[in-house]
């Protein structure tokens, strides 16, 4: 069972779309190239989408009905800090999760 009626539409569309993005240049080699100005913007796509996606999840978590949660907020700050300083994704996740559990334990 899936709660989203369009699940398969989403899977197929994302599959085709992602493949299209990956095949765009390696597939259609040389016949055309995207304007440099667009390529320049696309370089920042990931860093332009992900922070905006995550910010509301951090500030207004659904489990607390949109109230700011000190434990989750602290864990988020620690995760981002460790990730920025050490540039180790896994280390950041482990430290952040540890912080979350510690905070939840201390607050509860």
């Amino acid at each position: 069972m899936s709660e989203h009626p369009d699940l398969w539409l989403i899977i197929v569309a994302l599959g085709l779309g992602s493949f299209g993005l990956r095949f765009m240049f390696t597939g259609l080699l040389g016949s055309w190239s995207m304007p440099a100005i667009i390529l320049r913007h696309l370089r920042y796509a990931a860093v332009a989408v992900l922070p905006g996606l995550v910010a509301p999840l951090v500030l207004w978590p659904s489990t607390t009905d949109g109230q700011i949660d000190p434990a989750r907020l602290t864990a988020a700050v620690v995760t981002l800090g460790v990730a920025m300083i050490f540039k180790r994704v896994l280390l950041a996740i482990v430290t952040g999760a540890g912080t979350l559990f510690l905070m939840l334990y201390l607050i509860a």
Partner: protein
Amino acid sequence: MSTTTSKSSFWQGLRDGLPFILVIVPFSALFGVVATEAGLNVYETLAFSVVVIAGAAQFTAVQLMMDNTPTIIVILSALAVNLRMAIYSASLAPYLRDAKIWQRALVAYGTVDQSYALSAAKYENEPDMTTAQRLAYFSGCLVPVLPLWYGFTVVGALGGKAVPDSWALDFAVPLCFLAMIGPMLRTLPHLTAALVSIAAALGFTWVPFNLGLLIAAFLAMVAAVQCESFLERRSKT
């Protein structure tokens, strides 16, 4: 050219890809868990990983689906996260000019952060590689990555139901994203993009259908490029 050198390129790629196991295993397992929490069954979850193979985009889609976001916005937002793949494609294209179309299609399917990062660096450092060697190296990189990506998605999906609420798994996705964002913030334009994205996303939450996220992403990209041009102009004077 000769099969022996292609073979050694393959093994080299495989060896270089091994450290990514440490990232792939927990990340794909977590996707399995989160997708199960969102109501997907094991087959649906596996299909997601096999068809889409893009962690951040998969998490984005599942997260937005849980929030009952309209389908078109789910698709557009997840694809926006994947736009960087077009850059990867543009960057690999000149090196694979002589490969056959089906080989290039397979490379396209296997273009993920890990295989791209390794191959792009390798091709640039060793410009004398033949097309066969380049393809062999690329496939080598994928050997430790792809099967584990599929496999641990299933492991996570099967184990997901057993995870108790006290593990606060609702926050696993935000933490993963934050951990991925951190290393990306290496230049002032990147930092600008992130800050504009956050400010706009929070400011545009009133916009229906989660469209605020796409507006925020657009503004953030424009801001980053403006910042980049400003820095360039200043360094020239």
